[in-house]
Structure formats: C-alpha cells, structure tokens
C-alpha cells in the first residue's frame, strides 16, 4: 500500500486550513453532543452548539480590561490557529504532503513550543489575576509536558532512523509503531491533550480560576482561542497517524481516506476523554511527570533503539 510520499504544489496549502477547521468543528460538535447527552438534552442540539457559539462570539463586542497589553493579548489569541495550521503542513495525507521537510518531527515539536508562549501571552495580556494565574499554570507545567513529548516524538524517529515524516510512515510498512512502542504513543497522546489545555490537563483554563486565561477574553478573540484549541487538538490527532498508526495504510479505502478516518478516530478519543475523567490538579502533576512519565519515555526510547540497532 505505501507509496513514496510526494510534495504537492504549495497552491494546495489553501485547503489545509479548511480541512483543519472542519476537523476543529467536528471536534467541537462532538464535544457539544457529549455535553448535551450528559445533561439529558437531545444530542443533535448539542452537536449544533458550535455554530451557535460562533454566531454568538461574532456578535459579541471585545471587552478590554484595564491596562491590558492588547498587542500581546491579540497575538496570543490569534497565534494558536496559526500554529495549528503550521503543524499540519508536514503531515502527509495519504501520498501527498505540503512540506516534505527533512526534520518534520522537529518542526511539529517546535510548533508545540510556540504554544508555551501563546497561552502565557493570553494570560498575561489581560492584566487580571485569574487570567495570569491560568497563563502561569500552563507555562509552569509546560516543561513537564514537553520533555516526555520530545522523547515520545523521537522514539518513532529512532526506529525509522529519520526525522522525515515520510520515512517514519515508510518504516511502518510491516508493523505499526503503536504496537511495539505503546508507551511512547500514550505519552504522545497525553502531551497533545496537555498542549491543547484540554480535558484533564485544562487547569490553565480551569473552573476554579473562573476560566483562567479565558476569563477576560470576549468576542472574536475568544472565538479564535477556542477554535485554535480545537485545531491544535486536531493537528495533534492528525500527527499521531503518520507517527504511530501507519499513515495511510489500511485495506480497501485509498490512503488519503484512511488518514482522515484514523485522524477522526483519534480526535474523537481526545475529545471524549474530557467527559470521562476529572482534572489533574496542577500541583500534583509535575512530580509524576518527572519521576514516572519521563523515565518511562526514556526506557521506551532505549528499548526501541536496541531493537532498531539490532535488526
């Protein structure tokens, strides 16, 4: 099934953000449906909730707080969506990719690091206590998310002996990486969720601090942040496919369709987890990340490296 991955004309880049937005919308719709179901309302009304949200936020005026750093605030709000779009440039859709970078895996990681700055800027810009606490909560845990993520990203690259995403896909011709590096896969998924400030890791926007970095944003800014969050989550789900799930490999359907189906499934799992588990309190996570998760990631790299060198 696997063919060499070809770089398509940059003109196709117009479609990438559209596809990403559709995934973000689907994620938001699923989230709305799950909320509606647990509240005992018709699921369909919940699935339509994102449209109502968009309409609402487009109508809403932008409120500015006292002595806000508006420039940095807006950069933070708009940046999430940009970062998510940049992330998907290196993800192959079946046989096609927009940017066949030598170092696609590192590119993805770099965009994750951008998110450190963006969430902090959103919290900082508002100049209010709860928003600032939210921004700092995210940034102070970002190291705990980032290091395990880095090693989780490196693991498939070690097995494929390349940082090029296409090579990583090709290396899974016989066996998907998720099967023999499950620890790295789980850590990758957890980190994607954490970097989207979502589900159990959504403490930066927690209810206990009145919405955290979201507390003072309104109107279009809020719309951009919420969309950006779903887009980052979707981009992370999409990256899991070439990295661990064999890219476009699969029976019957064409490669590009398999990529989309797998992405949708991973995204659905990411969205659903929010409804199943409580938040992980921020002051309790760092120790676990450093004492359990990071060594587990390192061990996984070691095992994979030994197998890769041996074979």
């Amino acid at each position, binding site marked *: 099934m696997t063919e060499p991955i070809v770089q398509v004309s940059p003109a196709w880049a117009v479609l990438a953000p559209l596809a990403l937005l559709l995934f973000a919308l689907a994620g938001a719709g699923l989230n709305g449906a799950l909320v509606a179901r647990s509240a005992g309302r018709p699921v369909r009304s919940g699935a339509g909730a994102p449209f109502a949200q968009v309409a609402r936020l487009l109508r809403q005026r932008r*409120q500015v707080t006292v002595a806000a750093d508006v420039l940095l605030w807006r950069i933070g709000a708009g940046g999430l969506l940009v970062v998510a779009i940049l992330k998907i440039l290196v993800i192959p859709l079946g046989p096609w990719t927009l940017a066949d970078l030598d170092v696609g895996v590192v590119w993805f990681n770099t965009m994750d690091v951008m998110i450190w700055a963006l969430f902090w800027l959103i919290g900082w810009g508002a100049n209010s206590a709860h928003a600032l606490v939210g921004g700092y909560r995210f940034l102070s845990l970002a190291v705990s998310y980032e290091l395990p993520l880095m090693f989780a990203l490196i693991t498939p690259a070690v097995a494929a002996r390349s940082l090029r995403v296409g090579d990583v896909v090709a290396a899974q011709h016989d066996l998907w990486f998720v099967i023999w590096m499950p620890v790295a896969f789980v850590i990758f998924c957890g980190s994607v969720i954490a970097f989207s400030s979502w589900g159990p890791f959504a403490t930066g926007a927690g209810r206990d601090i009145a919405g955290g970095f979201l507390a003072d944003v309104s109107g279009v800014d809020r719309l951009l942040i919420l969309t950006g969050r779903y887009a980052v989550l979707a981009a992370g789900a999409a990256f899991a496919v070439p990295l661990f799930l064999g890219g476009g490999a699969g029976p019957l359907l064409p490669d590009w369709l398999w990529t989309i189906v797998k992405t949708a499934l991973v995204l659905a799992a990411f969205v659903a987890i929010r409804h199943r588990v409580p938040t992980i309190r921020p002051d309790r996570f760092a120790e676990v990340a450093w004492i359990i998760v990071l060594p587990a990631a390192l061990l996984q790299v070691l095992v994979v490296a030994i197998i890769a060198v041996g074979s």
Partner: protein
Amino acid sequence: MGVTSVLARWASTSVRVLVVEVPGSDESRMLLEAELGRRGWSVALSPADADLLAVCGIPGDELRAACDLVWNQLPGPRTRVSVTTAAALPALLDGAVAHLVDDSRQREDARARSQPVAAEDPTPDAGEHEGMSHEDMDHEDMDHGDMDHGAMDMPMPGGIPLAGGGDDRDGLEMDMLNVPLGPVLPHWPAGLVVDCVLQGDVIVSAKARILQAASAPTEASEQAMTDVVDARRRIIRLCDQASQLLALAGWQAAEQNARRLRDDSLRGADLTDHGAALDRLRRRVERSTLLRWSLKGLKLTGSATRDDGADLSIRHRLIGWLREAAELAGTIPGGGPIAAHDANRAQEAQEAQDALDALPDLLRGTDLGTARLLIAGLGLDTAALRETHEHSHD
C-alpha cells in the same frame, strides 16, 4: 439585514448566563440552572464570557454594587434579569432573549456605555486596589541595580498602584497582591467575599465576609422553600454541594449527574429510584482513582469540621454527602417526615458560623485551586449565617 439577524437567531440558542446568587436564594438559583439546562444554555465562568446577568434574589446594597460592577464588565450584547420567583422564569428568560437579539436596542446600549471599562478608568475593579502601597520608582538610571525610590511621579497604568513586597513561604521576596475572591464567581457560596493577599497564586492571608441580601426577607423564595419537605431540601442541598465540588474538581460527567439528581428532587419527582441513582454516583466517585489521587491531601482542619480536631478529607466529605443523600432518599419514598425545624436551623447556623470562622486559617498557604476546593468542601450555607447575625443583633 439578513446576516445579522441570522447570527442573532443562532446566537440566541446558546446564551451564556452569569449567575449571581444572593444569600438565601439558592432555590431560585437552582431553578434557574435547571431551566438553563433545559434550554441548552450554559453558565458563564466570568463576566467576559456572559450575555446575560441573572441575579437570583434581592441583593443588599453592597452586593448590588458588586452586581453593577460586574454588569459593566459584560461585553455586550447583554441583558440582565432579576430572578425572584420560580413561576415567571421561562417568560423572564424569553424576554431576555428578545432583548439580546434586538440589534437596535443593543446598539443603543453600546453607545450609552461610557468607556467599555477601558484604560484611564480609575476604579474599574473596586476593592482590588485598596490598601496597596504607592511606591513610585525611577527606572531611568537603573545602573547596577541601584534604584531610586519615591523620587519621581510615575503614571500608574490604569491607575493601578504597585503591589507591595513580602517574604513568601519559601523565604523569597514576592509581590503581595490584594485580590478579593467573590462575590460573583462560579461554584462559590452565595454572597461570600474572601479578601486575599496573594503571592503568585498562593494565599498569604485571607479575611472572609458575607454580603447580605436586602434586609426585607423575600416573600417569594421563602414561600417556595417551605413547600419543600425538610429531608428533600437536605437532599437537594447535598446534591448541589456535591455538584459544585465535582465541577471544581473538573469532572464534568459526574457534576452533570449530581446536578440532574438535584434537579429531579427539586422538581418534586418521586424519590424511590433516587436512592439507587445517588448510590451509583457515590460508587462511581469512590472508584475513581484519578479523583482520589487528585484530591489527596486536601483536608478540612480544625473547627471547620464538625467533630473538632479530626481532619476530614475533601474526598470523604464528598462521598459522605452522596451517602447521606442516598440514605435520606431511601427513607422517604413519597413524602416523608418533617424533621424538627428550629433545632436544625440553629444547628445549621452554628455550623456555618464555625466554617466561616475557620476560613482564614484554612486558606493560609494554599494555592487558589486548593482554596476553591476547600471552600466548596466546607459546604458553607451563607443563608443560615444570616439568621445567626439577626439573632445576635436582637
């Protein structure tokens, strides 16, 4: 005309409501929340997130001032309602929607607002800036860390003075910021204000006070309250407390579950199946290892607990509430006995007073997230407090 009206119509299907509860109006709030749930609306976490400000009950002067301040922070389109009776609730919310989608009125409102809480407004967040030291600094020649204090007049951004410094719990010098928590916060006891001194997100010291309802008791809510049997009232209250705590712990599914059980009891539904449902929820909470781990070490100490001395973990408190509610629901299938009313009230008032007194000690040295969980775990009944105040004044 087309696009704006379509947007308005779509937007009106998902209104976000900032709920302010006046002490003693918890039933109005719960009825409002139930109605919001039916409509698919949701509760806003902050003023910037809200279209509708709903004040449940009739606030006293201080609380009214706080509501007006918050009202000014709603971005708009915005509208506000005062919820005092259960009967008119659907009509009230329909009216609010009509006001929200009315573009011409909203434009008028936007024009009428002075500055949208913009810079140069000297006291936008009243209370936040009181009692801080004014220390002007000269940053022009800051060579080698030499600083010149108080020599020059520096314009304060937005009129906000600098925070003072002080040693933190690790012996480092940190800014001390005065931040009042409440009275308008989601999942927060009605009317409570905790004036905190923060270093980072750690509370250095805290003082608690209650902003009361208007002094004349609100007939309507009193009336609604006495219709409900005491045991049922207790179940409703326990479910409400549990759902607040679960919301702060970030467990949405369990929170919704507790809230639905609360709303069923509130509606006067048959309680026969209720005990079993509450029991299932309790077991679910008990089984969650993630919740156990996440809430570990959160304890109510000292006089905050009923039996003095013994610490009570927040998680056990939560499970205890659900167990008590399940047992109560088991004993009263249809109606049920009415417990001795006055004795209960007096005891409740005493408990609430003890909890309030214990707050400053309890919160010292905790971070904001922990503090919120601890306060939710106290299950502070601010309405009961009011009665003690009135007794003590008599």
